[in-house]
């Protein structure tokens, strides 16, 4: 763009006052993006199968649903919600711990300043991407098919889903460290274990804990719904009450999930503030 301005000013000794923020190519590609989004939107609206009567009816139906949920059945908490909620928290925590077994080696393989081979990057990236692409509920379906309904399926679903998240963020954190201390350690002839422990680890530590806590927070939310496909936790209680149309019990379960999720978030935010 600049060179264009100069050539004009040399020949005509006039300055081109018209200022453009973007080059023509950028402008065109931006419009192409807008246009393709518009086309996608129009196509979607035209082809999606939505029954408009259902849509107009929705506010009424939602109001009806909430009316049936009231009053919340608080006695249901002692009967089954409490135990299921503890189980849910355990699934989330255990799943987060189990995921570290897979995520840490994959993060090492994916970080170019630990393993330089492109093969190892491709292999680790394949696992990380597949783990992230498949939703935890779908992982839970798979593991319920393998281990039968129960807690094991839930823990493994949480673990397999988190691998991609923790592995990716951890490998990015490892790649961002300052290599000076690592090189200094290598120069002393330290074995690789010592290099990992004293070169990489101290620099990655805050990021590691904050990533794991962040994922734990997400896992608490996700483990609350795994029971819908039979993988243990509060979801099973929720599903049973819904199948029995016991909406007041459903409201109790939802309230319990809401409170636990908010508490988990507050805990994580406070710990992360201290860490960073």
């Amino acid at each position, binding site marked *: 763009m600049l060179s264009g301005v100069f050539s004009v000013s040399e020949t005509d000794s006039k300055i081109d006052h018209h200022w453009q923020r973007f080059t023509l190519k950028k402008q065109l590609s931006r419009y192409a993006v807008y246009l393709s989004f518009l086309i996608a939107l129009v196509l*979607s609206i035209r082809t*999606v*199968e*939505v029954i408009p009567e259902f849509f107009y009816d929705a506010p009424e139906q939602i109001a009806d649903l909430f009316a049936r949920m009231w009053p919340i059945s608080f006695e249901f908490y002692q009967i089954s919600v409490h135990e299921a909620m503890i189980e849910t928290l*355990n699934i989330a925590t255990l799943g987060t711990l189990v995921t570290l077994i897979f995520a840490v080696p994959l993060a090492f393989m994916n970080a170019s300043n630990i393993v330089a081979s492109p093969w190892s990057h491709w292999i680790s990236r394949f696992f990380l991407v597949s783990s992230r692409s*498949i939703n935890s509920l779908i992982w839970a*379906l798979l593991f319920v098919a393998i281990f039968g309904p129960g807690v094991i399926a839930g823990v493994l679903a949480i673990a397999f889903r988190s691998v991609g998240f923790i592995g990716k963020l951890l490998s990015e954190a490892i790649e961002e460290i300052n290599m000076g201390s690592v090189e200094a350690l290598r120069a002393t002839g330290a074995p690789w274990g010592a290099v990992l422990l004293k070169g990489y680890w101290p620099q990655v530590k805050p990021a590691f804990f904050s990533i794991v806590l962040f994922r734990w927070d997400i896992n608490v939310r996700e483990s609350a719904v795994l029971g819908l496909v039979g993988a243990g936790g509060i979801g099973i209680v929720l599903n049973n009450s819904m199948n029995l149309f016991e909406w007041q019990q459903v409201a109790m379960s939802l309230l319990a999930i809401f409170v636990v999720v908010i508490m988990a978030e507050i805990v994580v935010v406070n710990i992360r503030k201290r860490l960073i």
Partner: protein
Amino acid sequence: MAELGVTPVKDYKNPFSINWLTSGLWILVAGYLLYTVQSLGLSWTRFSEGLHHAGTLLDRMFPPNFSRWELLFSGLAESLEIAVISSVVGIFFSLFFGLFAARNLMSNLVTVPVRGFIAVCRSFHPIIVAILFVKSVGFGALAGILTLIIASIGFIAKLFAEAIEEISLKQVEAIRATGASFTSVILFSVLPQVFSRFIGFSTYQLDSNLRNSTMVGIVGAGGLGGTLFSAFQRFDYDFVSAILITIIALILFWEFLSNVVRSIFSE
């Protein structure tokens, strides 16, 4: 050393001393593991039996069966439709909610209720919202769209608000000094500062809506998830693997596309 007149420093910290906090943490983790294995009734026999099942399952999953590609394709199309519509509507609403939740432009009277609403949208997992919508508007894509709109508002309205709170107020003041109306202040001083970040958040949200649109079908809210769930229930594991491969390919393709979009919009 002593004859050189230099006394060696003795009181440095041993870099390899035992860190009691870390070891305590490890002991805590080990104790927790033992406790959960006890209380959740996890046992090795069940796990090893499961591994045996996993072998047969994998055996039945391969080769993937693409013969019912029409079903697969219609599910995929519905997922895409849900993702696109819910993202557009969700982002549109989030623009307003984000603006009203920004504490540097709005008074507390506006921001507090809007922030509360955003927090409520965010704290329920999309699946739970989907269940409620399926119960209220019936099975099908509409429930999925409404669910993902709620999820989008919960996530990006918050990010939008944070982005708006980080802008420099000098430009806002400059535009205000010209006597511009409120809309003009927003359009010409706030929006240019946050636009490229908005695009980043929006592509991220489209990405996550795409992932979630393959999931909400499990509870009957339309899309590929429904196809997947019924394939699971009929033990059509070769079709299941075909669906899973399609989902992964879709996500990879979308990641590629969103990288292209991001590189276009990051000046």
